[in-house]
């Protein structure tokens, strides 16, 4: 919570599928450099929200702004160019690539997709390729996948596949990172490791918007929590506020309070 400026502003966003209002008149903003969590029951519209922000689907109504840019309904690659990167709830890896290659794709925006320099192998081109590789090495070391860099990503276990996705997203050098249930399928120890990772990422100045069902993670990690239910904002606030909020208990936690 270093700066108060909002990096992402979602304004009266709505999206329905047939009769289902997946996101309904939702407004909130994410403060720069925060870790901001989105929680809510299954089917509340969290992933839909991510899809709207990253341009995978277009909203029926409402605006999405990134810093001072209107990014509503832009194509996903354009939004990525604005510095937004994400992971997917249903892991989407490149089935024929190794861990290293997968993460390398993330450097596309840095190395660029220009053909001429590639064919002429310009100095600039070679320098960027080298830098990109160094960066990937750094990231893979950072997420703990360096040892596995030559394995096919799709053959890793579920948990490690999630790390690959995170590495790939980090490689784009995002200013805003969207994580959709990044710790699903991981045990407590691994979750803890990832949480440390997220804190470090955040320290590097990357704002994180995270969806998670793991309340321990959410409570420890986040600066701000937005709870949504039926596509609408239920409550919003820092963990202390959300923690014992009766509406959240009712809709989301069920008996979990006993354990918490």
């Amino acid at each position, binding site marked *: 919570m270093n700066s108060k400026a909002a990096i992402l502003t979602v304004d009266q966003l709505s999206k329905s*599928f*047939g009769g*289902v209002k997946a996101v309904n008149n939702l407004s909130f903003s994410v403060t720069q450099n925060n870790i901001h969590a989105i929680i*809510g*029951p*299954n*089917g*509340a519209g*969290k*992933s*839909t929200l991510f899809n709207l922000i990253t341009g995978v689907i277009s909203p029926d109504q409402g605006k999405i702004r990134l810093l001072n840019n209107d990014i509503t309904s832009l194509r996903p690659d354009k939004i990525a160019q604005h510095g937004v990167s994400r992971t997917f*709830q*249903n892991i989407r890896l490149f089935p024929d690539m190794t861990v290293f290659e997968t993460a390398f794709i993330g450097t596309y925006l840095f190395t660029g997709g220009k053909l001429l320099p590639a064919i002429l192998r310009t100095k600039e081109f070679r320098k960027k390729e080298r830098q990109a590789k160094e960066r990937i090495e750094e990231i893979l070391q950072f997420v703990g996948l360096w040892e596995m860099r030559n394995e096919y990503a799709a*053959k*890793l*276990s*579920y*948990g*490690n596949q999630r790390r690959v996705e995170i590495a790939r997203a980090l490689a784009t050098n995002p200013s805003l990172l969207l994580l959709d*249930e990044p710790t*699903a*399928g*991981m*045990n*407590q*120890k*691994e*979750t*803890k*490791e990832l949480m440390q990772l997220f804190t470090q990422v955040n320290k590097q100045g990357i704002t994180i918007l995270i969806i998670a*069902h793991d*309340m321990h993670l959410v409570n420890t990690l986040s600066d701000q929590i937005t709870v949504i239910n039926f596509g609408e904002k239920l409550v919003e606030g820092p963990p202390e506020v959300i923690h014992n909020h009766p509406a959240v208990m009712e*809709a*989301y*936690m*069920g*008996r*979990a309070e006993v354990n918490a």
Partner: protein
Amino acid sequence: MLNVQNISTYYGQICALDHVSIKVEEREAVSVIGANGAGKSTLLKTIIGELRPKSGDIQLAGKSIINEKTFKLVSRGMTLVPEGRHVFPLLTVWDNLLLGGYTLPAKERQQRAEEVTEPFPILRERRDQLAGLMSGGEQQMLAIARAMMTRPKLLLLDEPSMGLSPKLVFEVYDKITELHQQGTTILLVDQNAEMAIDFCSRGYVLMAGRLAGQGTKQELKESEIVHRSYLG
């Protein structure tokens, strides 16, 4: 009931299970825990016949099932809720459920579908929505409900709580507790280790494809390795 003897399973050259033996008695609830990549899913897939072990034997009610096809095992009362849900994305929610009851008599299917969706009202509301368009958690509910259609005698669960909200995790565990009490044998893999250990009477610990330990609920809770490698 289920007796896994010394199996080794390979993916090509890679050894994912190395001489693993486990045993599940009738009406027991047993858990398998282990880190990412330890081989838990591989173990369940090997039991259900999706993977063939290179060596070792698996017996169901005393008979070797190592050469049985998956669908045969299912019709003999064993079912797996696979990791990552695997619903049929382009079929409706309801069709997914009915297919879960493929081996049931036609008359029973509808009613059974109503029964298994009782803990998950959303599935009833959205019965005509394509399963692939449901949210992650909703698909998980569907996968669980679908597996229950046949009233399996032996239920293998691979991370059933993945992607479910805390409230639903409890509901799912309630449901499998109920099934267990009604006589279903359960072999459970769940990263939510505390819950898994609590739920089961016994458990096995897998590490890098090998059996690293086993014990009763109490033993596991106090075990050093479990804490170190698993709960962290």
